[in-house]
């Protein structure tokens, strides 16, 4: 039962992704992307990573996607039909995509083919393996070798830089003094 749901979810995910890359209308593509993100969030739930699903919905969909939609609404004629790529380009891109699929897939599945094979097959670990919010929080601020304190500090810098950069790039220079 669970497997059927999983496969249906996969189908939806890949289908919506296909719409994102193939749609000739930009707004439609954006909405399809939104769908992809939602499906991904559901997938995370299935994989027992609720925290990530939460973050996905709140930040990714609620932040990034809104931003993308804003950009789409600000810069394009919404009903417009974008021109498609040339056949040469399609062929080359299909080739690259296939290559990417092949290499990445092969590498990943080689990594996934664990030698011990004990926990490779979906045997769910015990309930005490579930990442609880408290455990996550403690791990996040853990200064030890297993902790994520330093990345936590660094990412705040990254976000600051991104903010400043975005403002600097996108601001209107017309009325300013040189």
């Amino acid at each position, binding site marked *: 039962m669970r497997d059927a749901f999983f496969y249906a979810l996969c189908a939806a995910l890949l289908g919506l992704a296909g719409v994102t890359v193939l749609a000739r209308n930009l707004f439609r593509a954006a909405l399809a992307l939104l769908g992809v993100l939602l499906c991904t969030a559901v997938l995370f739930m299935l994989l027992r990573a609720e925290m990530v699903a939460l973050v996905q919905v709140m930040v990714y969909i609620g932040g990034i996607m809104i931003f993308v939609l804003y950009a789409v609404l600000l810069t394009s004629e919404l009903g417009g039909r974008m021109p498609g790529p040339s056949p040469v*380009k399609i062929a*080359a*891109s299909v080739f*690259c995509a296939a*290559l*990417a699929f092949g*290499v990445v897939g*092969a*590498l990943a599945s*080689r990594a996934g083919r664990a030698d011990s094979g004990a926990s490779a097959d979906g045997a769910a670990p015990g309930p005490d393996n579930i990442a609880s919010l408290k455990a996550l929080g403690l791990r996040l601020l853990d200064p030890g070798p297993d902790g994520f304190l330093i990345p936590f500090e660094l990412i705040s810098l990254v976000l600051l830089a991104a903010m400043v950069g975005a403002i600097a790039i996108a601001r209107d220079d017309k009325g300013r003094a040189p």
Partner: protein
Amino acid sequence: MGSADAGMDSLKLAAYGILLLPLLSFLINGLWLGKKSRTASAWLATLAMGATLILAVAVALGYRAEVLGHPEAFAFRSAVVWEHTWMAFPTGSGAFLAAEAGFHLDPISVMMVLVIAFISFLVHVYSMGYLRDAAASGRFFALLSFFSFAMLGLVVSGNLIQTFFFWELVGAASYLLIGFWYAKPAAVAAAKKAFILTRLADAFFLMGLLLVGYQAGGFDFAHLNHPATAAALDRTVGAGFLAFNLLTAGTLLIFMGAWGKSALFPFHVWLPDAMEGPTPVSSLIHSATMVVAGVFLTARLYPLFSAADITLLVVESAGAFTALFAAVIACTQTDLKRILAFSTLSQLGLMMMALGAGAPEGGEGFSSATGAASAAYSGSMFHIFTHAFFKCLLFLSAGAVIHAIHSNDIRKAGGLRKILPFTYAATLVAALALAGFWPLSGFFSKEEILHAALSNGHYGALFAGLATGGLTAFYMSRYFLLVFHGEYRGGEAPGARREGLLMTVPILILALPSAFAGWMGRGFFTEYVLPWPALAGQGAMAAAGDTLAGAGSWLPVAAGLLAVAGAGFGWYRYGLGKKTAGFPGREAPAWYRVIADKFYVDEVWLFLAKRVGGSWIAAPAAWIEVRIVNGAFDLASGFLRRLAFVQSLFHSGQVQWYMAVALLGLLLISGLGGYWIP
């Protein structure tokens, strides 16, 4: 040897100075002073040459005291003043074929050094007046100094390599000076003609030089002139129809250089055209010094040449033919300088013929130092000596005449003795000397030559010499009378400017040796200027003296009579107030026109150059150069261009292209890495 060495040391400084002073004057004038100030450059060159003359006299006096005073210490009366190793070509097994750069003195080189320094100095003084108004005189004086340096270096060299080196430098100086007025197309053409013709001859010279030097194991004159060397070279090499005698071939090839440089038929065509250069150039280079370099070289290698079986015969024949040929043409020319040019050609032929006439009858080698050979040798050198003075004077006076009437054409001259009195007197002396009138210098030098021919049994050469003498007297009297006597035939009045002092004084000074060099030099030449085998033995010198005094005393009388006859015929045709006799125009008979057109030798050369050189050799070579050589380069560069174009496609600026390439690279690396990392 101690005192000899000390004596030689005292000459060293002077010897260095003789070469260095003209060289420095050339460098300073050429690189800086010539452009800065014309007057200063003229003074610098002239003073440098004057100092060189003083040093040359010092060296000559030193030579007389040291070498001639101690003959036992100096074999062949030759001394090495200084010498440095210059080139050494390894020939395997540790041996070297070496050439030194040095300053060698022996009788003929001392004579030449004096002549060159003296004439060059006078020409410098003359040029200060002649080129007073010329624009680029700074360059002129630099080139005159350069020429003097090169010529001096040539005559004092002790081996063939140094000789060849300076030989080429002299040729380059001649080219630059003939084409001095490079805006004049005729001058440029003449310079090219001179250089290319002599360079062609020099190619053979180089071949012979290398052949002989390599086979003989050395380039020094002392080594080459040794009888053992000649004997070693006298063998046949090659096979079948390509076989040749090494000695004959080598000496003939070397003589080719002299053939071209001394302008013997048929290489003579460059010398009349070289008159396009300024008159001081003609008087210094193309009469007194450079053109005799060929005769000088032949004299230097005289023992070697005479050991070969036909070389001296070739020398004699070429000289005799040229002497007669040029003398005949000189009788018909209407350009002042060309008359003198053909006269020079004729006299050069005489000098060469003299050297050739020294070969004993039957063409045997030089193992016996016959007195006749010595007489021929010293006669030829003596004639170089006397000819330098009166020919230079004649050219300088021609320059004065040209300056006065502003034209080179003898048909526009006449009656100039009133305007140029001093020039007139000096030219009279020189003309009489050239024609061989007793007691002037030319008489004695020609006498020695004719005597040598007679006593050696070379009657053909004797006939040629006598006939040339008669013709010389005729054309010189024609020249003299048409220029200085009679009525003035030019358009406007001749230049009323008084004879410039700077131009007249050298002319007057030269009149003295023209007159008296015969008396002054005779003793020196008969006693010391002898080929080496003769110098080795005392007995031969006495034989030389006997030859000159004894048999054949009818000869000077005959020669003198011929000269008088020639001059008389000239007086008959051109003197006595006859104005137009002697300028036949188109109505002249055909034989006259052929002679006046110089027997069309120039046209033959032109055809050879254009058709053979141009169409048959140069054009295919050009085709190969353009199509094949350039084509190969174009192919290579085209390939690189296409390669670069392909590479530029990677810089299209298209982001998605960049991303695709980056992705492929990433996949490649991660794929490979993923499979190699266990």
